[in-house]
């Protein structure tokens, strides 16, 4: 599903790279945690897969497509196969929760009818059935995060990227979201979660990729959060 070969990302020349010489393979259907200190390159890793950024060097393949040499016009098609929960949510401010989630379906040309059945269901799954008509600035931090999660998987993408999807959620809600991700993974979706949630990582026992200063320092299947502190 995902393959990175010798990938480096340098934002500012002469500064330490955000990612350096990262190699990794993630097979279809895997569930992977990415962990690491603040600033270790987790978001950069995810943004590279989404082709929000281009790497400074190296090769990236997602779903058998060369992400780096992709033509501009093909990028939207790549992204439609990737659901992404952004660390800063990236909700459209002039759209309600419902419309934000619906947008991911409108983009792929789904009919109004399909949208009208799927969106409320997904919003219910993340516990926002009462906030469908609220605009992002009328939602609490955690509620915004859940809208972002709902939008990411509403169109059942084969690859789900989540950048700290539970950073603004209480443990109970987090657990709900994680088990949702787990269920989604069980249906064959590849799931990649960048997280700080030690409890979660330790309890789920999935593959863990640990970053430090942009380097992969550990890649364990059935790993734990680590970092003895």
């Amino acid at each position, binding site marked *: 599903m995902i393959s990175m070969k010798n990938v480096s990302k340098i934002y500012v020349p002469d500064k330490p790279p955000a990612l350096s010489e990262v190699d990794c393979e993630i097979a279809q259907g895997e569930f992977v945690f990415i962990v690491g200190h603040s600033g270790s390159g987790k978001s950069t890793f995810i943004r590279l897969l989404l082709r929000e950024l281009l790497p400074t060097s190296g090769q990236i393949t997602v779903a058998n497509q060369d992400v780096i040499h992709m033509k501009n*016009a093909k990028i*939207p098609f790549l992204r439609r196969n990737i659901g992404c929960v952004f660390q800063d949510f990236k909700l459209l*401010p002039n759209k309600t929760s419902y419309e934000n989630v619906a947008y991911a379906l409108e983009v*792929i040309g789904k009919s109004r009818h399909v949208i009208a059945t799927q969106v409320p269901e997904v919003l219910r799954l993340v516990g926002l059935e009462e906030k469908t008509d609220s605009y992002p600035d009328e939602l609490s931090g955690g509620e915004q995060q859940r809208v972002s999660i709902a939008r990411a998987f509403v169109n059942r993408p084969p690859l789900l990227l989540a950048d700290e999807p539970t950073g603004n959620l209480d443990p109970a809600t987090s657990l709900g979201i994680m088990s949702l991700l787990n269920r989604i993974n069980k249906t064959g979706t590849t799931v990649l979660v960048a997280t700080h949630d030690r409890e979660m990582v330790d309890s789920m026992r999935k593959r863990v990729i640990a970053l430090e200063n942009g380097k992969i320092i550990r890649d364990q299947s059935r790993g734990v959060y680590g970092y003895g502190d």
Partner: protein
Amino acid sequence: MAINPGYFIRETISSFRRNWVMSLVAVSIIYISLLLVGAFFLTSSVLNTIVSSFEAKVSVQVFVKDGAVPADVEALQANIQKIPNVKSIAYVTKDQALARFKERTKNSPQLVEQLRGNPLPASVEVALVDPRQVQTVVNAIVKDPLLAKVVKNPANPTQSDIRYGQNVVDNLFKATGVIRIFAAAFLILLLLVSLVLIGNTIRLAIFARRREIGIMRLVGASNWFIRTPFLLEGVLQSLVGSILAILTLLAAQAVIVPWLQDNLKFLPVTIAGATFAQLAGLLVLSGVLIGLLGSGTAVRRYLKV
């Protein structure tokens, strides 16, 4: 992939509503710029009518000697009538000429008192289609062999027998030419300026929404899917602005033109319906075009993500 045609219309309208501050500012700037263009367009069209009416007063007079054979004069008239650019001709008899002279010199009655008989010549007055071509018409008349039979001084007819206000005409056309150039230049300047203004406003409005465009890209929207509502919104804003401008101009014109006609009875102040239609077309078209172009180019900048 199925397409949702209704989607774009709903999207455009809701965006127009939800970004109403921006929409309002954009519409008002479009309105104001087009109003300005329109006002100047109409003013310069009135100016043009007036200037043309001055030009239309340019005519050629051929003075007929007292002993000329009437048949020759009539034949000459027929020939002149055939010269291209001649609109109409009129024959002014000696009596008519004297009457005009008396009217013109009524403050020097001694002059008229002194006159024995009627020393004034009859004349043929030639009106022109395009007064600027007066010299060509004069040349054609001079070439006519009949002219020699009719005028007093056939060797050099333009000396005294053909009058068309040579120097005045030259100055008049220079002046009207400059007025026309100025009006046209100002109109073009105004049009360009308003296009830049509208383009910039739309660009600013889209700049303020650049993050949104980035987000749309990131959730997999294709460029045309993102662009279409912005384009439609730009067109909608331009349409509203230009229609408001046209309505305002219609209303203003209904007040101002009669006032002008009242105050300038001696000048032809009118705005042709065709001129107005032309203007309306110009405004709507340039508005919509710039709406499309402005939002198109502005959105493109933020589609790079």
